[in-house]
């Protein structure tokens, strides 16, 4: 087991190296390049040249790349053009909000998607199955930001069931310990804060959950269908095991493996999806910040965000690999 983990960690080195080169080339060599993003459109050639020199863009490629790596290793992702503060600090500041949102979205997606997918598979061809498959296709085809807007207009503005913006209602006093509102509220037993924070998470959480929910439902359905056709399920049935035993011990347990792994990977994509949802609900997380960055062409923030997401993806991949090898010995043997 340990050898497997070490091997996977070693395999990370070329991946991360390649990823950093890819990102570097991608970001530095795009037509226009950073100096066009930083300067106003009517800047003179001299201004451009001066900026290029101050950014080190006149240096040879390898020198630029190495200094890029050094900066990243030191946690220096540059300074945000919007706030004038280090990008990494800005991300850390907003991380708890986005994390809470992502977790709520995941909880929604899993608690609805798993049972729905399972039931759809068990009752294949019925109205329920049709609705589940159709609904998940619809979920994939609906632009996330539009869904967010619709939810906001209907449930926040028209019906007033949920708040339409921010993490907490203004004027609510709370003790800040970790930055995670719900967690802080639970620790200090400020139940009104917990309740209020949860209410603020419902609509953005639902909007953000739409795509993972659709994917989980479809995957669970496909996976359960596949396992139900396996020989060992038929054998278990033939042995005269009770239906519920077969369903839980044989079908569900095996069918959930790929779904669990998919959940891990979807978790990474939630951060990218947050850009489209948080901005609609003025939710003060990383997503809103990056959304503002796209509006302001805040180049360092965009770079930093992509780097963050890519690194996260690679590490989630690693975790998924390791957890999977714990569950399935065949993977370890490869």
């Amino acid at each position, binding site marked *: 087991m340990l050898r497997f983990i070490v091997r996977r960690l070693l395999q990370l080195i070329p*991946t991360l190296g390649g990823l950093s080169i890819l990102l570097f080339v991608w*970001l530095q060599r795009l037509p226009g390049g950073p100096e066009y993003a930083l300067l106003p459109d009517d800047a003179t050639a001299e201004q451009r040249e001066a900026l290029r020199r101050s950014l080190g863009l006149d240096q040879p490629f390898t020198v630029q790349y190495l200094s890029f790596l050094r900066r990243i290793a030191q946690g220096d992702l540059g300074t945000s053009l919007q706030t004038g503060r280090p990008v990494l600090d800005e991300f850390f500041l907003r991380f708890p909000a986005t994390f809470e949102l992502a977790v709520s979205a995941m909880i929604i997606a899993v608690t609805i998607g798993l049972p729905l997918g399972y039931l759809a598979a068990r009752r294949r061809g019925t109205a329920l199955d049709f609705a589940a498959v159709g609904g998940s296709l619809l979920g994939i085809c609906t632009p996330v930001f539009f869904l967010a807007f619709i939810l906001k*207009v209907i449930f926040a503005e028209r019906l007033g069931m949920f708040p339409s913006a921010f993490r907490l209602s203004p004027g609510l006093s709370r003790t800040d310990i970790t930055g995670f509102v719900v967690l802080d509220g639970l620790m200090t037993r400020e139940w009104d804060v917990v309740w209020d924070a949860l209410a603020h998470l419902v609509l953005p959480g639902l909007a953000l959950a739409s795509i993972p929910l659709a994917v989980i439902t479809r995957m669970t359905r496909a996976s359960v269908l596949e396992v139900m*056709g396996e020989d060992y399920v038929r054998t278990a049935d033939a042995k005269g095991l009770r239906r519920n035993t077969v369903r839980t011990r044989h079908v569900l347990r095996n069918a959930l493996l790929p779904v669990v792994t*998919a959940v891990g990977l979807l978790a990474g994509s939630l951060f990218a999806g947050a850009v489209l949802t948080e901005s609609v609900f003025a939710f003060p997380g990383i997503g809103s910040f990056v959304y503002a*960055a796209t*509006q302001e062409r805040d180049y360092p923030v965009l770079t930093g965000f992509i780097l963050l997401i890519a690194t996260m993806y690679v590490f989630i991949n690693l975790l998924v690999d390791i957890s999977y090898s714990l569950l399935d010995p065949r993977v370890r043997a490869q």
Partner: protein
Amino acid sequence: MPTTPSSQNPSESPETRGGGEDTVPRESTEDRVPLHRRKAAKVDRLAELMGERSDDGHGAGVWREAFRRMSRSPMAISGAVIVAVFLLVALFSPLIAPYSPTSQAWGGEVFPNRNEFVGPRAENWLGLDHLGRDMFSRMVIGARQTLMVGVVATLVGFLFGALLGGTAGACSVLGGRWGRQVDNVIMRVIDMMLALPTLLLAVTVAALVGPSLTTVMLAVGIAQVPIFARLLRGAMISQGNREYVLAARALGVRGHKIAISHILPNSMGPVIVQSTLTLATAIIDAAALSYLGLGNPDASFPEWGTMLSEAQRFLSTAPSLAVYPALGIIITALGFTLMGESLREALDPKLRN
């Protein structure tokens, strides 16, 4: 490697049909690949399948067989109907649209700041937008623009992806040990591209190059490159082990000729299926980019994504302005997805029932 046609002809084992489930046990690549690489594995599976089936010598060809199965599936039919209507509207839009999509002929009747909008009426079937333009004409003309965005983005992804994947595949099959090295390097790069989230790649391109419809098409297309590349490579490698390739080599046909005129045409199937699915993704992604303010800055000429992001401002007062383009996007994307998914299923013998 060649699969005997009899093992996959329609009159299969009784329990496959009777059970009504996907009872064929899986022993495909999908099981061997660690499951977290599902995205990649799904693509590979498609590539592999099409490779397997293409020499099915049983009367009807793969495509005709798939078509026969699709013509019985309600999913495929509804998808095809949606796509057909969309294509007709897009192609003949100048003939259908009653008014000019840019003319603000009824500008005097709409006052967004006073919340005065004009809904559907006899002369304007879908009402007016916030500048007093005919919504129906804008939707119809917008269909054409939206189609163009989807098609161009898909073509970009297809071309660059096919170039990369085709090179990798050809090198792997025909290049010997050195070629497999080239293939390896290309594939590692592709895998890394696959690790970057699609929309974010598009956002950076758009943010750095500046907002325009061309940027959106390029950005969305580039994000699709790794998927196409993987797919084509997989299909080409599966074709590369065929007897006809061996025969061509034995006859002394040059490597690049084998790759281009023998292997490539036989490997295009999965790529075509993927193109259908990509069209849907491209339209949705383009809308998201427009929402992020990276789309066409000139909103006067209609495109559904641009219209939708522009109409968000009025969603609480005049929801229909946003709902029409949104419905257009959702229904069209749904049409392409239904078609692509059912085509994929129809071509997959494992899912047959």
